[in-house]
């Protein structure tokens, strides 16, 4: 089991950063998804034992992070968000230093640093001071520092933020290679769904300090039910919407005034739409089936949570 969280809560003054977080996750690559301020970084810091939760239990790789943070960190590699660095050190020295802090001998750390920098694709620039690095080079060095001591779990906080498409693609490619090869399991915290879709097989969706979903990406997509149809046309679209809704289909307004989004009851095909349109006298010029994207599933999870949250707020007031 990579992560097991039971009733984890953390408050910073008036802000409830984590709210009774409970989930258990396993797999080779886990995505930690959520909008900014969802509590992703707080959760990662709690996993590292860098902050103590007000309540609950955090177990990482079977170890209680509160009781033995040293053992957890020995088996974890963490790359924080932001320009964390030691000015004056070169990329090579930074990675070797990180290795030494994790218990490698000086010689082993230096050899390993060369090996890891080859892996992350930092070539001659490794000898230059880190202050001179571009964002892409920084991310590579941070990844190298997280990997140098051969961790069992790699925790990356927004590793692709600020990267150009080329660098981002290379970094994600590397994470996929780590997942598929002998590398450590990956916990990837991001608000970019594409990154999770490309690298991860499992995900946690967080919003306002709460877990909205924890499980595989496939299950998340399946939870959304049947595919959605996007309709465009003219005439009595409002009548068409109510006729479809009366028949039990889920109808939502489209992105344009002349569009509707319809999720049909399982077992029904697009002919149900055509029949309803004929009955109310609406003429449709487009009925397009759209497969469920992770983005939709994510938004549904967040929206569901938002509605819950608004309900709680109303109840409190």
């Amino acid at each position, binding site marked *: 089991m990579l992560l097991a969280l039971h009733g984890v809560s953390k408050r910073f003054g008036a802000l409830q950063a984590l709210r009774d977080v409970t989930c258990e996750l396993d797999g080779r690559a886990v995505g930690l998804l959520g909008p900014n301020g969802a509590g992703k970084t707080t959760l990662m810091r709690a996993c*590292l*034992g*860098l*902050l*103590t939760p007000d309540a609950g239990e955090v177990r990482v790789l079977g170890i209680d992070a*509160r009781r033995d*943070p*040293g*053992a957890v*960190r*020995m088996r*974890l590699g*963490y790359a*924080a968000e*932001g*320009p*964390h*660095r*030691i*000015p*004056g*050190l070169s990329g090579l*020295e930074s990675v070797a*230093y*990180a290795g*030494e*802090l*994790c*218990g*490698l*001998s*000086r010689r082993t750390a230096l050899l*390993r640093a060369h*090996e890891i920098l*080859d*892996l992350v*694709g930092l*070539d001659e620039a490794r000898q230059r001071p880190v202050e001179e690095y571009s964002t892409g080079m920084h991310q590579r060095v941070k990844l190298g*520092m997280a*990997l140098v*001591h*051969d961790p069992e779990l790699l925790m990356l906080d927004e590793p692709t933020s600020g990267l150009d498409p080329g660098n981002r693609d*290379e970094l994600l*490619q*590397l994470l996929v*290679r*780590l997942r598929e*090869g*002998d*590398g450590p399991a990956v916990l990837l915290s991001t608000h970019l769904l594409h990154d999770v879709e490309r690298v991860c097989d499992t995900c946690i969706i967080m919003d306002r300090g709460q877990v909205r979903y924890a499980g595989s990406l496939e299950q998340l997509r399946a939870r959304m039910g049947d595919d959605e149809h996007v309709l465009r046309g003219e005439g009595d679209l409002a009548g068409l919407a109510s006729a479809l809704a009366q028949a039990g289909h889920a109808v939502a307004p489209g992105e344009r005034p002349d569009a509707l989004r319809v999720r049909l009851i399982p077992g029904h095909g697009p002919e149900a739409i055509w029949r309803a349109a004929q009955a109310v006298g609406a003429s449709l010029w487009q009925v397009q089936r759209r497969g469920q994207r992770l983005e939709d599933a994510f938004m549904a999870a967040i929206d569901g949570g938002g509605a819950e949250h608004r309900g709680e707020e109303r109840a409190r007031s």
Partner: protein
Amino acid sequence: MKDQVFSVGYRRLPGDRPRRWAPWPIARTALALAWRKRSTKLGVVLCAMSVFGHGIAIAAQVLAERVMGRMGDRDGPGVMRDVLRSVVGNVHATLATFIGMQMIACAFLLAMVAAGLVAEDRRTGAMELYFSRPLRRRDYVVGKLLAAGLVPLVTLVVPFSLLWLAAVGMAPARASQELMGLLLPGLLGAVVAAVVLTTTILGLSALGERGRTVGVIYVVGMLVLTSAGADLPRHGQAWAGYLSPLRNVQTLADAALDAGSTGMLMQLLISRPDTNPSVTLAVLCLLGLAGLGMALLLWRVRTEVAG
């Protein structure tokens, strides 16, 4: 090309690794980074010049002692011997002065080497980088103390021992016997000075967020305290002497080494700090200052990291 780079692959490290003492890489890296700065090298030169100057003075005093010994053998106690002693001074006073003067040079060097040890870690986010490794707060604090403490150790405590060794080695047999007893009290004074310097710079660094600013505040603060400690007692405020760490260290060193006159030559070359009336109070003030620095350092690390 990219495929070649990525084709290296990930290699697992073999077996369990023994837990190594983490403070040493922290201290070594901090000192290596400091050594890359030109200002640090200038500070080292300043310290070396101070050691060299005091070494010359001690050599002159020991030679004078030999000459006085011969004069004493031939002519008995006389005016010439007293004149010579008042001009060149004695080794006790020079060793005591060395501790005080070297403390100033060392404070300058520490401002360049150690002012950013904690402050820069906070500014650059390196603190999180450290504590996401299997480091305890204790390892971090000891590493930083070691990095800062090695500076006064190498520029103050070790040179004091070398000067003492030179004095004992060159002195005539009778004087040599007397000088032997100076080592432990002298080392006590030097170590207290080193501890005060180390903890105060780290305490200040724990408060600041920029190494350069902390360094300037440290040096200016030391100068202000030193001049307040020197001037206010002349205007009847004797208590103010205890504000000056330099004056307190000089008080302790003089008492420990039983220093007499530094001699006219030394007085011409160096403006030696005055001393405070109470050695006990001076030591208490120094220990209080060191305790404050240490408390600030521990408080900062505790507030930055929970586990």
